């Protein structure tokens, strides 16, 4: 969750000045790299006490209407719209609360949040508040999966160590993952929490059948990879993408190469892969690539382990590769 970005627009998002030509039905069409950008020095105005409270004092500030008594967090109004615009007063609220409803979990994020997925985002009603504050949600135990945080779950506000005065300076974790002292502490910092480090799973020794299945599955995958590399549509799923992936299973290891539309499987060990995938049963991956299940869901359900969360991007592309091949086959049949 820690982020050290010094530029408003990170360099990796910025394309070169370039263009290319796409030919459709023997006619050329020009594509040009382009951008719309506007910079701001934007005031937080009347919201400044809330954002300064987070940044400087590790406090959460709300506002209370003296007429109806409603405590709004964040303090989005200076005057209560329900009470003929009676002026509201700022006050501090608690840093523990309950989820207003079950939060969604984002696995496929926008380009700006790809490095943060999977994450939850939901609404917490903090102690002393009547309205809900929108927050990011994480678990200290690895990947956030459905069921960990639900409507009514007690959550605790955590402050990032480096804060800039934005809503992203805070996030929440389930209070049940913290000690009583941590839950009680005001202004609890991210660095005060034990985050479980990703550990590559260890598998039991394979039997003869496992090894035979592995050999057979690798051959199946190699044949599939050739089909995918020949499919115009499937190639689009991995266009412009390059990854050398080491895949470890109970019965053996193989290499998966993605190279700008080409997809290849080789039974060999990679000395320095871009990342590692590990699954006890190779069929988990075979089913995903054969479009009999999703590889993304295998990661979520912990059947498949990946060494870098950011490589969810590659996992999505593999799922798409499988789907695009099937779509092409269906379309050919339908037409």
């Amino acid at each position: 969750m820690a982020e050290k970005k010094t530029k408003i627009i990170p360099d990796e998002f910025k394309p070169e000045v370039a263009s290319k030509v796409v030919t459709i039905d023997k006619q050329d069409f020009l594509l040009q790299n382009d951008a719309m950008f506007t910079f701001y020095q934007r005031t937080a105005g009347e919201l400044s006490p809330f954002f300064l409270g987070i940044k400087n004092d590790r406090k959460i500030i709300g506002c209370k209407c003296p007429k109806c008594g409603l405590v709004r967090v964040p303090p989005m109004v200076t005057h209560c719209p329900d009470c003929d615009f009676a002026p509201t007063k700022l006050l501090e609220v608690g840093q523990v609360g309950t989820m207003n409803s079950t939060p969604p979990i984002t696995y496929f994020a926008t380009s700006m949040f790809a490095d943060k997925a999977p994450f939850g985002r939901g609404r917490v009603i903090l102690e002393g508040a009547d309205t809900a504050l929108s927050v990011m949600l994480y678990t200290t135990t690895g990947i956030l999966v459905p069921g960990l945080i639900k409507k009514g779950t007690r959550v605790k506000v955590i402050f990032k160590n480096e804060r800039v005065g934005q809503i992203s300076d805070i996030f929440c974790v389930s209070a049940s993952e913290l000690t009583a002292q941590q839950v009680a502490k005001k202004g609890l910092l991210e660095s005060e929490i034990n985050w479980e480090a990703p550990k590559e799973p260890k598998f039991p020794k394979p039997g003869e059948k496992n090894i035979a299945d592995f050999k057979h599955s690798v051959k199946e995958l190699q044949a599939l990879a050739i089909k995918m590399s020949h499919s115009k549509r499937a190639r689009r799923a991995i266009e412009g993408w390059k990854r050398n992936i080491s895949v470890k299973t109970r019965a053996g290891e193989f290499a998966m190469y993605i190279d700008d539309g080409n997809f290849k499987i080789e039974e060999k060990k990679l000395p320095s892969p871009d990342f590692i995938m590990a699954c006890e049963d190779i069929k988990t991956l075979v089913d995903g690539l054969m479009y009999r299940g999703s590889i993304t869901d295998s990661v979520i359900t912990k059947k498949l382990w990946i060494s870098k969360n950011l490589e969810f991007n590659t996992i999505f592309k593999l799922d798409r590769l499988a789907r695009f091949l099937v779509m092409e086959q269906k379309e050919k049949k339908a037409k």
Partner: protein
Amino acid sequence: MAKRVGIVGAAVTPFRSRWYQKTYYELAQMATREAVADAAISIKDVDSVFYGIYNDIFERACIPESPLQGIIGLQNKFGIRVSNGGATGAYTLSAAHAYLAGERFKTALVLGVEKATDCFDFSSMSATPEVIKSIAWSGDSFFEQKIGWSASDSYAEVVLGYMDAYPGTLKPEVTARISSLLSEMARSNPYAQRQFDQVTPEEVMNSRYIVYPFKELEICVYSEGAAALILAEEETAKAIAKNTGKPIIWITGMGEANEHSFAGKNQKDMSHIVSDYVGSRRAYEMAGIKDPTKTVQVVELHDAFVHQLEITLAEFGLVPYETVDSLIEDGLMLPGGKYLVNPCGGLTYCGHAVGASNIMSAWSARKELMERKLTTALVHGTGSTISQYTACAVLEHE
């Protein structure tokens, strides 16, 4: 007394994941050309244009409609743009209806266009993350954007809120079946982006999570395309209809509502799409519909997400909240069932060219009313930050 307003012409361009061959200028003109041809009038007979364009970033211009006025042949005539999130198209129809009912004009062009997938993410070398990022600029800029708000996760919040309130509803096998059904509907729509992408419920259930609880095949697809309607007040509509020999499809009800952008006590109720409830009731009232379950035959609703399609039908009063899955389990929306829902394939399979989508839905509803000789359709648009927007129209065959 407001004037009656009817639809006398309609057209759509093919919805595609990418139109390399056309800019939004040409897509807009293409739909306009076809719509005036359908009404058998000249563009010179059109008094006004109402543009439905959702997102400046997609078109890469802050007044994207300005180049269109001359391109569609309406220079020096009235032109106004409506931008209301996902509900842009339905709200554009609402605005045009109000101007014509108020006798400001005799005819209006309702024109929706969107060019979404010019956006491109150079870090993942694909369009989708950038398209959804562009939409994510729609979220609250102080409290939501910087923590990953997206269209999908904001709708997922409401869907999960509904599931909290009505446990056991929106079963995965039901949403998968609906997605499969919509894919079958799209098969007969030559303008659909996924005309040949028929999927089985099993494939839907096997597809990957995008944002829990949404699977990839339960989500609308971003499209590029345009849609246009020709609207006319009563006398003009009758004259046009006499000439074309096509029936007038009257807009007999319009209803709209926008919700609060914060949740909690006295704010947004996360377990309902209140705007769908209020918007539809306002439209029913204007159309004189007392019991929609006995009147509405065709529903063309904005299915941004299949789960939301179910909730929206419940908010419309067409199925009880607690037994919303009876849409499939009791066959209410199955072929031959009580309601014909999204015969175009919906936004899930026909596609979601945002500003054009609800106008495409009206095009489809009109077509179904005419071809199947049915009487009443409900057309719907919804958009969401957390403050959901809804506009509903009741269409009736003369």
